[in-house]
């Protein structure tokens, strides 16, 4: 059997050597090309892994963190409602309540203070403190309850924001109240610098008078953050929370 011992053209004859010990002889050009090829393949694999990380792994971590913090908020509420004397405050990490949006067919979304990556990456929706401070519904004042959450990765809590239509309910649950909002305007794409959408009276939505508004912001199109997607709602009703925390009609059975 003829075995090619030495290939001067620089081909890799080392792959099937019978003894498996001798190093293959390769020209410098072939070595370089082979090395570059391996680097490119490695880069491809790393980018692929980054997609897996962004769209799957961060969701796992964020959902776990959000579930844990949600439980803590609910426990804290129970303690506060049951006994007047609070036996040591739990660290609820600024969790103020939950958002329920049946149109997005999500579970409850924990709402926390701030829109830093630290907050949003834990699978929560954050209310804006900057550049325009959100007006919390619990304050009872006129203003805009402006929120942000991730479209993809990190829990992707506003992933299905495009499924919200005008007239759909958005409900915010606090310790003792249900705040029922109704969506009246959607802006499918705007600049990421468009801070006007957060104003107390968000005039871009068409409303010119003070009122109790809610604004959901996230990125669009999906999987990038080139632009922002905005949904505006207006408060239509406030219901007290009963002993069993029966949800208002809008989100019952969702």
């Amino acid at each position, binding site marked *: 059997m003829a075995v090619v011992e030495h290939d001067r053209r620089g081909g890799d004859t080392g792959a099937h050597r019978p003894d498996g010990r001798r190093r293959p002889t390769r020209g410098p050009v072939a070595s370089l090309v082979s090395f570059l090829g391996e680097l490119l393949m490695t880069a491809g694999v790393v980018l692929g892994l980054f997609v897996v990380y962004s769209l799957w792994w961060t969701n796992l971590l964020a959902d776990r963190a959000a579930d844990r913090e949600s439980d803590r908020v609910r426990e804290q509420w129970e303690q506060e409602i049951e006994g007047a004397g609070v036996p040591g405050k739990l660290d609820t990490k600024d969790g103020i309540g939950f958002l329920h949006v049946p149109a997005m067919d999500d579970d409850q979304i924990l709402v926390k203070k701030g829109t830093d990556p630290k907050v949003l990456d834990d699978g929560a929706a954050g209310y804006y403190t900057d550049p325009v401070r959100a007006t919390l519904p619990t304050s009872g004042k006129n203003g805009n309850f402006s929120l942000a959450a991730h479209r*993809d990765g990190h829990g992707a809590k506003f992933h299905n924001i495009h499924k919200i239509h005008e007239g759909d309910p958005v409900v915010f649950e606090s310790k003792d109240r249900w705040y029922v909002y109704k969506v009246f305007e959607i802006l499918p794409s705007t600049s990421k610098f468009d801070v006007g959408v957060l104003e107390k009276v968000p005039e871009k939505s068409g409303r010119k008078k003070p009122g109790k508004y809610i604004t959901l912001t996230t990125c669009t199109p999906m999987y990038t*953050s080139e632009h922002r997607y905005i949904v505006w709602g207006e408060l239509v009703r406030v219901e007290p929370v009963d002993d069993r925390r029966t949800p208002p009609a809008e989100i019952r059975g969702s």
Partner: protein
Amino acid sequence: MYGWIWRHLPGNTWVKALLSLLLALAAVYVLFQYVFPWAEPLLPFGDATVDEQ
């Protein structure tokens, strides 16, 4: 590069294969735990807020 690693791993083919797998897993761990969390804020894929910058 990978050929060099393969030649320098000890043992027979099975041991080398096992060690290669462990090395690959270690690389994935380092990427997921340290590299990607570091790189993510630098890439324009995950911003959900409007702001003035």
